């Protein structure tokens, strides 16, 4: 490390590791991981979301899971919470839909209406 600038760069990249542990409001993505969700491919959806977040360097997003919401037919279900906005629930989220939801909704803030099952 040669200068303060080097320290700042290292700090900014290292912060990604700490985001999950820091307080404050974050973007939250909740995936239905009940038996029905997993059977419908929620694990693959989850993996796709994680890869996409990593690819886009979006480390300030918390992913959590939930159980069966009762709408098993529409699994895998994915909820997106942007700070200060109500929940948006997408249905039948496969890997491709997951990637598009990250790009459109999480990054650009545009809800993809055609896949929404509840909001």
């Amino acid at each position: 490390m040669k200068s303060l600038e080097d320290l700042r760069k290292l700090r900014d990249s290292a912060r990604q590791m700490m985001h999950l542990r820091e307080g404050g409001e974050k973007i939250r993505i909740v995936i239905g991981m009940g038996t029905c969700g997993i059977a419908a491919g929620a694990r693959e959806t989850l993996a796709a979301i994680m890869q996409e977040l990593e690819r886009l360097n979006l480390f300030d997003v918390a992913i959590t899971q939930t159980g069966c919401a009762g709408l098993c037919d529409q699994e895998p279900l994915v909820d997106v919470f942007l700070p200060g906005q109500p929940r948006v629930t997408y249905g039948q989220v496969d890997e491709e839909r997951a990637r598009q939801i990250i790009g459109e909704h999480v990054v650009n803030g545009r809800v993809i209406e055609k896949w929404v099952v509840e909001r």
Partner: protein
Amino acid sequence: MAYYRAQVLVCGGAGCISSGCKAVQQALIDEIAKAGISEEIKVIETGCIGTCELGPVLVVYPDGTFYQKVRPKDVQEIVHEHLLKGRIVPRLLYRDPLTEKTIPEYSKIDFFAGQTRIALRNTGLIDPCVIEEYIARDGYAALGKALAEMTPEQVIDELVESGLRGRGGAGFSTGLKWRFTAQAAGDEKYVVCNADEGDPGAFMDRSILEGDPHSIIEAMAIAGYAIGSSQGYIYVRAEYPLAVANLQHAIEQARQYNLLGENIFGTGFNFDVEIRVGAGAFVCGEETALLASIEGSRGEPRPKPPYPSDMGLWGKPTLINNVETLANIPPIILHGAQWFNQFGTERSKGTKVFAVAGKINNTGLVEVPMGITLREIIYDVCGGIPGGKQFKAAQTGGPSGGCLTAEHLDVPLEYDSLASLGSMMGSGGLIIMDEDTCMVDIARFFLDFTQDESCGKCTPCRIGTKRMLEILNRLTRGEGKEGDIETLEALALNIKQSSLCGLGQSAPNPVLSTLRYFRSEYEAHIKEKKCPAGACQALITYVILAERCRGCGICARICPVEAVSGQPRSPYQIDREKCIKCGICMEKCPFDAITKH
């Protein structure tokens, strides 16, 4: 950098290690691998989280779920339920001792919510062995700011203005100490970190060294810049093996990143740190004894002045600061004296870490603003006293301090208020005592410690404490005689006035302060040969109350020395000659027919 959807923090402080966190951590890694989610979940070992009584503890992020007393056999359920399905495991959650309700979230638990963490800002949150995590939390930014934007004088001015006082014992202004050392004549100076935490019961320094070693290295480098020194030493006791290992690792990392070494941040400033391991003598926490020990001599104090700021290590001007004091310095430099000033009281700024132990529900480390009351620490932060027992006293400052009583529950805790009550802040040990604690016995316990740790160089401390201990031993055995209290007081005064160093000067404090507030207990031991708290074994007798005894015979069957006898269905008796006062009969009697007095 890989993205993880969850991070599981495993407390790896020495407290949790002794309750088995290593096995839990391994089970967690194995179980996560078995579930095929190693790519999604990261397991991180942190320093002490502070709730040592509840260990091993885990915190799962992003939710911040706090699991306590986790055994390896519980791990599978946590992985399958929480990490796979997102369902919290209620039986492992923290339970509020008063309301009995479970609280899942770390930040909502009173023990954590009631704290203000400056010195402990990173312990239990970062992995102490990964320098990047420290840097992510603004680590080394204060050193960068000092070197790039401030003159040494400005650094010292900021520190003086912050009002920071030494957290190791006497509470001297840290900024002034830096100024004196900076002004001392000499081109070679040293920075020494006093990590010889000797107070039995205090472990905040260990926790910081284990859990956030870089904060100490950074603070020492800032000190080096301020006073004009290029070499630091950390004097740490060999009883802290994890602290030594983590410090050594941190020093090597800092050297690799050129945060120690030559030309730091390209500013031309050079600084390096070395560890000196001590054998763990209480007296080596005294600064002149500590310096002697670093130099390779026997750890004995010498008279002051000259103070170390003028003539310290190898006769050169030396700055000595305690671990917790140093841990406060990077945030002060980074955020400014004004920011630090908002915490604490008029004459005691900032926060203090207390190691709370004894008769208390949540044992552990708490960092709270100066000026908080004993009542708030005991009942709000630490969950009260177990078994609904009454608070009797609290010992502050360890074996050098004194006690506070129920009438002091609402006194703000700060350097000066404690000193005026005959106690001291000391290093922040806080031992809570309930109605079953005998104050004579407590004074005896602390004096036994200081007497044993006296280095023997000066007579008042070496022989005086021995004579005091002999008297206290007699009192607790019921062999006290008239005049003992007066002799204790005379000895105490002499030892305080004529001892060479702080160890001797403060050794009589526990006796003096218990005499001040609980003199009647001493008198009861001498005149009536009774221990009012029922703690001194030699002074209690167990008696069966004939009117309550149903003659069931349980006491006779369990007595290990056959001291209880009688006929079924008529009252039993205890033979006082045979009784060894183990108390098991009283504990097991189903009719509460046995008492002690």
